[in-house]
């Protein structure tokens, strides 16, 4: 007898979509998410395509559907340890890290006020700091704080615990390991930004005012470290000249040997963020080919109607900085054939999407390509969705989630 339930690994847009589609036609669904929150990369954006919605907009409705559906069970801060069995009959071992804050939490924030220790914020890609007791963003789901127990000493932990009026701080919380029996697995582990410290000729991670596109997203997001105002990291000054470096580590056999599909659009979106805040800022986008697939071409046409925006064909291959920490970009304009050094206040590297599974193996021997994308696995009962499969925008990610739900259902039904 086949097991009817479905495991969804990854609670980003693809995973949530797949889980809801399957649950709403009657399947029991488990979502296993490694972060303390659902929503994945979308939750970190200021706006997302195609309609430039804030992430709370699309995610809020999904969270409502999850809350209302008793067939969906969510495990955050959890990872898949191992998968055994086969299609229709998987045995999955899950390991859940302790959150140290239980379901009594009302997200009042008193624990964060009581905490003194601050560390670099992973959610903000290091552009900001967070307390040892924290919630990543205001609309986080589940609405529950996290305690970074290892970052605090015993005294601080005690004062955090006593600050909580609801007895939600559980210092004796332990790592849990448990098994789930499922019929099929949707693999929606998504992507991570390509590690820009590998781009040494572009000063990635070295130069203060050279940020990645995802860092820029956090700088522009209202719930980000600067409250949504784009300021350059070194001195919090308002940038007047900003450059975007496309294909930073993408379409490059020394880094990611493929096009991440959406970075050109992301940079054009970032140009719009800047336009709202700094109508007079001079913005330059350096590209190899400006790729604006399908209807995004219209977005480009509208964005480039701006005399203060220049689009320059030529890949930036060297960035240095001057004494005032202004990045100096060296580029050859391939149209004019002039190589020059250009000074900016801030440079954004449009880094690509690397599959989260790069360098690891998806269970049950699901085939992967050399970059770490899952390129099959349906026969093994492992159905990949979203950016675990290929670089996608949010709209196509949702479609791929629905499609994966369909295949997952087909895997468990009719056996």
């Amino acid at each position, binding site marked *: 007898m086949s097991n009817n339930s479905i495991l969804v690994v990854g609670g980003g847009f693809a995973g949530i979509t797949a889980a809801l589609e399957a649950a709403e036609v009657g399947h029991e669904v488990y979502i296993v998410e490694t972060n303390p929150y659902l929503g994945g990369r979308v939750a970190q954006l200021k706006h997302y395509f195609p309609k430039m919605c804030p992430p709370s907009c699309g995610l809020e409705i999904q969270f409502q559907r999850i809350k209302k559906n008793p067939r969906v069970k969510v495990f955050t801060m959890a990872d898949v340890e191992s998968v055994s069995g086969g299609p229709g009959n998987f045995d999955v071992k899950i390991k859940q890290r302790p959150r140290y804050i239980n379901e009594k939490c009302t997200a009042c924030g008193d624990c964060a006020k009581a905490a003194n220790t601050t560390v670099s914020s992973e959610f903000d890609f290091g552009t900001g700091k967070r307390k040892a007791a924290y919630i990543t963003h205001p609309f986080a789901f589940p609405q529950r704080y996290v305690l970074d127990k290892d970052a605090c000493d015993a005294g601080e932990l005690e004062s955090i615990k006593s600050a909580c009026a609801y007895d939600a701080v559980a210092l004796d919380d332990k790592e849990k390991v448990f098994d789930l029996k499922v019929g099929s697995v949707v693999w929606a582990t998504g992507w991570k930004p390509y590690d820009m410290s590998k781009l040494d000729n572009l000063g990635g991670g070295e130069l203060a005012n050279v940020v990645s596109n995802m860092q820029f997203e956090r700088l522009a997001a209202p719930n980000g470290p600067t409250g949504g105002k784009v300021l350059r990291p070194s001195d919090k000054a308002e940038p007047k000249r900003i450059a975007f470096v496309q294909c930073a580590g993408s379409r490059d*056999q020394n880094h990611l040997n493929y096009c991440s599909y959406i970075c050109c659009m992301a940079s054009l979106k970032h140009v719009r963020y800047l336009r709202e805040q700094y109508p007079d800022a001079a913005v330059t986008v350096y590209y190899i080919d400006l790729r604006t697939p399908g209807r995004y071409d219209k977005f480009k046409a509208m964005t480039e109607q701006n005399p203060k925006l220049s689009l320059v064909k030529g*890949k930036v291959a*060297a960035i240095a900085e001057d004494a005032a920490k202004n990045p100096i970009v060296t580029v050859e304009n391939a149209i004019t054939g002039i190589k020059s050094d250009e000074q900016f206040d801030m440079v954004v590297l449009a880094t690509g999407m690397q599959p989260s599974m790069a360098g690891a193996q998806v269970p049950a021997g699901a085939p992967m390509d050399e970059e770490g994308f899952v390129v099959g696995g349906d026969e093994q009962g492992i159905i990949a969705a979203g950016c675990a499969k290929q670089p996608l925008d949010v709209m196509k990610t949702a479609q791929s989630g629905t499609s994966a739900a369909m295949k997952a259902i087909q895997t468990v039904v009719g056996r």
Partner: protein
Amino acid sequence: MSNNVRVQPDLKFVKELQAVGGDSLKKCYQCATCSVVCPLSPADSPYPRKEMVWAQWGLKDRLVNDIDIWLCHNCGTCSDLCPRGAKPGDLLAALRNMAYRQLAPLGFIGKLMSNIGGTLMLAVVPAVIYLLIWSMQAAKFGTALPKFVADGAHGWVPAVDGAVIYGGLFPGDYFIDPIFGAAFAFMVICFFVGVKNLLAGFKKVPAVYDLTGAEKPCFCSALIDTIKNEVLQHTQFNDCGEDDADVKRAFGHKMLMYAFIILLFVTGVVATGHWFGAWFLEHIMGLESGPVKLLSLLGSTPMPQHSVIKVLANIGALLMLFGLIRLTKRRQSLDPGKQGSSFYDWYLLGVIWVIALTGIGAEIFRLLNVAVLAYPTYFVHLVAVFMLLAYLPWSKLGHLVYRTVALAYAKTTGRIPMGAAK
């Protein structure tokens, strides 16, 4: 009327280029990373991105007359950072190989020098010449491995308990010097035509690359400036690449070049001493003063090991080995996915290796007085030196002349500044 430019691609040329080392040029997508990371490329119309697109389009005229291929010293940084593995550095090297093949007259030599079979065929020429001399001399002395003693009146005379004397078996006056003199003259004439072709090509391309705004030097002062800076001090080469490997390569190349200069000087001293001192001044003019005697002594071989000239020659040989080891090691360590090595590269290293090893070997075997090893080694040495010298314009060593001329010309057009302006 529309004013469209129709590209007339020379597909045969593209295929030729791919064959001589530009095999990956079609992978290029014109991102211009190469032009930016090149430490030598000028700001206006930098290379090698434009060469990549010309090559893809088959614009032969632009490429074969392109002066920028000689500005490149091939550190390979462009190919290392190329996102597509299109190897722009290899394309420029391939274009230079093409120039070696086609600039000098007697195109068939260029064709033969482009592959190992042809080169071996060309090696038959000196091999036959020297074998002929050897067998004639062997018939005369009654042995192929004669030993000699000095006889004041008749030069070297065979003697069973004598010594290995190369000048006895291959007398310089009648065989070595005239043959190498002829080979040298042949090489110079071919180079002369090659350089004429090179300059004519540069002049075909409109000279638009002037950024300096400085007054243009004449060709003569540009050439002197180039020899002083780029050649003798390796000023361009030293700037080519920043890695440790690049620094080592430039130093190794410089030492190898100094070795050649030293050995050229030694050869010059011997030739002057022998022909000018001993033959012209002593023999023809009948002079016998002290300086004349000293000069003719300098031209007399074999030299004692303590002779200043001999010491210098040995230093040259050691420097040559040092340079060769550096350059060979580096070439072996190249990642073939980033930078390839063509027949031209290996031939030049190979022939210099043979010259160095047989040269040193011939000296050692002579000192050990082992005729059976010494004469064959010397024979191979003669063949290898002939190869290097006579076919120089068609080999990679042709860069010695072509690059020097191109750099000097580039200064007259303002493409690169004079040494002092750097």
